[in-house]
């Protein structure tokens, strides 16, 4: 049995792999066995370190040395100097950009860690179905402190001072919202948790509820104490069965332990939570529509004011916050407003959870401080674009957001900067697209979603989006004109200005932002009837190269519509009037004779 006393960890993340980390590992193994050290030093491939900009990364344990931008040629030096002689290889150490100091020991140094987990602090740490594990990590301590040591006004002041803003997308200051509900007159008040996460590709709230349901329950009780409510409601979509189950378990445990119910912690404060199920309508993420849906009415928004803080659920003052917003609250109380507001940018404090998806290497759930740039998120944490392709665009804010180009990669992420850039924070979906994606099709895809999810109450959203979609369909079919582009813009702006709720007001964003940022692609579609990314089927043209075609008849036999003709052993031909552009011929041809343009 080998008795390893040293470990070499070589990053095997996709980014580092592309820069020869495999070769680095092999070199380590080779040199170590040459020196007879193979039984003492173990070489291991790891996943991504999240610092791809400085990759390939090699970390040596137990002395925690962190080498950056290592090449296969450097390996001998590391083995000879570091492993054999115990001297660190200075030129490969990371230099702190702040003061140019070399960092020889990565113990406790988090210089390369771009993420901070506040809302996700317990996700992946505790068993979500065991309240004691939550209590062990200071769970319910914030509620205890608030109830026994602070007045509701004091707690609201802490939340206000922290600078926390609504994580559901709007970014309304949470403390202010609580204060408004507190001040509203009413014999009965409600606290509502909005768990109607509906953006395609977003799963932040689901993960929090599945991984740390007690944090939301605790925060709702704190909110109830502040606004003067003894009843909490969680509006959650029925298609989140596991989140629902874990919430139920958590609520029951909290009741059993006396952390929910009557006379909580002997302070005379009562609070109970009930679940309300939604049927998965996107518009019900809008707070007035959500409240109507809870009341058993159609999930349609109404004009604000009156705001839910004055007249919400059953006409009573109601405070609606999103899951992630609530998950931040206990930490803010425990650690203090100053601790929280030290993280982030001037106007956006704390962190934001993003569901990072699309054509990216490390798809995942991440939490970064406000002010982190899109580049850091995509290239360092996300590990860059899949298959070494070129980055094209990043979509933030889901169907209500916009598509940003590489010119925006260095924008620090916060509510205001993203709005300025023509997109929005939204609830935290982030979808990365590469050169193979057609931006006109992407705009059409998102519009299809909002079109389906539009409740139909107001005309601009119901009919306007339908017309927008028709124009986009025309363009992707190669029948669009330049006038259509003007129409898209005019109509888009009208919908934005005149729709009743957030869904309609933001639904043209994907179209307007792609018009702004990817005009050349729209022009290629309308002027040349071409799709530069090769995504718009109707604009593709398949033909057969006479010189390469051997007349093997494979395409002829596989064409589902009989559009291909030709004699055996002589070049074949595609009848354009019959071709449905399914691409089977291209896939089947062994000689690369099928051309596509």
């Amino acid at each position, binding site marked *: *049995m*080998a008795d*390893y006393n040293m470990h070499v960890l070589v*990053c*095997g993340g996709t980014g580092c792999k592309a820069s020869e980390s495999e070769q680095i590992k092999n070199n380590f193994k080779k040199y170590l066995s040459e020196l007879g050290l193979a039984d003492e030093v*173990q070489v*291991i*491939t*790891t*996943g*991504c*370190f*999240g610092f791809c900009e400085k990759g390939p990364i090699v970390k040596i344990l137990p002395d925690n040395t962190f080498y950056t931008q290592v090449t296969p040629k450097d390996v001998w030096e590391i083995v000879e100097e570091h492993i054999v002689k115990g001297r660190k290889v200075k030129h490969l150490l990371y230099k702190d950009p702040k003061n140019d100091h070399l960092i020889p020991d990565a113990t*406790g140094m988090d210089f*390369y*860690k771009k*993420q*901070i*987990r*506040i809302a*996700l*602090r*317990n*996700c*992946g*740490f*505790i*068993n*979500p*179905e*065991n309240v*004691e*594990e939550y*209590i*062990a990590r*200071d*769970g*319910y301590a914030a509620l*205890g402190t608030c109830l026994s*040591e602070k007045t509701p006004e004091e707690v609201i002041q802490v939340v206000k001072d922290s600078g926390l803003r609504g994580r559901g997308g709007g970014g309304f200051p949470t403390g202010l919202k609580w204060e408004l509900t507190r001040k509203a007159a009413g014999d009965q008040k409600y606290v509502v948790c909005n768990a109607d996460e509906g953006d395609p590709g977003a*799963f932040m709230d*689901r*993960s929090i509820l*599945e*991984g*740390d349901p007690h944090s939301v329950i605790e925060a709702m009780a704190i909110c109830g104490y502040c606004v003067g409510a003894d009843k909490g409601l969680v509006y959650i979509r029925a298609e989140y069965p596991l989140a629902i189950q874990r919430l139920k378990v958590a609520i029951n445990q909290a009741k*059993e*332990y*006396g952390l929910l119910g009557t006379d909580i*912690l*002997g302070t005379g404060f009562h609070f109970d939570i009930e679940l309300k199920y939604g049927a998965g309508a996107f518009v019900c993420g809008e707070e007035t529509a959500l409240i109507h849906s809870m009341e058993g009415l159609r999930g349609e928004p109404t004009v604000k004011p009156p705001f839910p803080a004055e007249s919400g659920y059953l006409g009573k003052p109601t405070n609606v916050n999103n899951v992630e917003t609530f998950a931040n609250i206990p930490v803010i109380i425990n*650690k203090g407003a100053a601790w929280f507001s030290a993280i982030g940018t001037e106007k956006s404090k704390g962190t934001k959870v993003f569901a990072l998806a699309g054509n990216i*290497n*490390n*798809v*995942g*759930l*991440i*939490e970064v401080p406000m002010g982190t740039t899109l580049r850091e998120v995509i290239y360092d*944490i996300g590990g860059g674009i899949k298959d070494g392709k070129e980055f094209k665009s990043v979509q933030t804010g889901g169907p209500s957001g916009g598509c940003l180009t590489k010119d925006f990669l260095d924008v620090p992420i916060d509510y205001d900067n993203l709005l300025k850039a023509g997109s929005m924070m939204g609830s935290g979906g982030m979808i990365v697209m590469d050169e193979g994606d057609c931006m006109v099709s992407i705009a059409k895809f998102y519009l299809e979603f909002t079109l389906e999810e539009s409740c139909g109450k107001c005309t601009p959203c119901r009919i306007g989006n339908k017309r927008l979609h028709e124009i986009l369909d025309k363009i992707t079919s190669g029948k669009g004109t330049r006038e259509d582009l003007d129409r898209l813009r005019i109509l888009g702006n009208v919908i934005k200005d005149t729709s009743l709720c957030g869904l309609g007001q933001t639904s043209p964003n994907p179209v307007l932002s792609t018009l702004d940022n990817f005009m050349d692609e729209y022009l290629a579609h309308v002027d040349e009837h071409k799709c530069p990314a090769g995504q718009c089927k109707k604009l593709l043209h398949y033909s057969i190269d006479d010189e390469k075609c051997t007349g093997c008849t494979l395409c002829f036999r596989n064409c589902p519509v009989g559009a291909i003709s030709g004699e055996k052993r002589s070049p074949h031909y595609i009848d354009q009037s019959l071709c449905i552009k399914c691409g089977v011929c291209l896939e089947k041809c062994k000689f690369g004779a099928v051309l596509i343009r």
Partner: protein
Amino acid sequence: MTKIKTLADLKRIRDEVQSKIKLREQGDKPDKLVQIKVSMATCGIASGAKETMTYLIDELEHQGIDAVVTQTGCMGYCFAEPTIELTIPGKEPVVYGHVGKEKALEIIEKHIKLGEMVDGIIPVSYKTIDE
């Protein structure tokens, strides 16, 4: 369970559970146990986390290795599901990605039994609220 009546009660329970967990992790006592957490959010389960967890429990029992296998929420590494976190008493926790049955067996045979790490470790790339 009797209800928690005061803030002091809550703190006492917190300290008790904390020391219980500490004991388990540091293994100062003879009942030191290997601890495995399996990431079991919807996405992890969809990628096979349940099978991995069942396999780990069965195989550890079959081999007579004392270990605590529990479920936890999303660790955030969607690209590497199913993921598990392994804590050997007295050592730092290690996260492994892409843990199917084969990988699980390799982890049991090498890491748990021999103390050798195996390929597929996911480095912790975030700060916690306590840092």
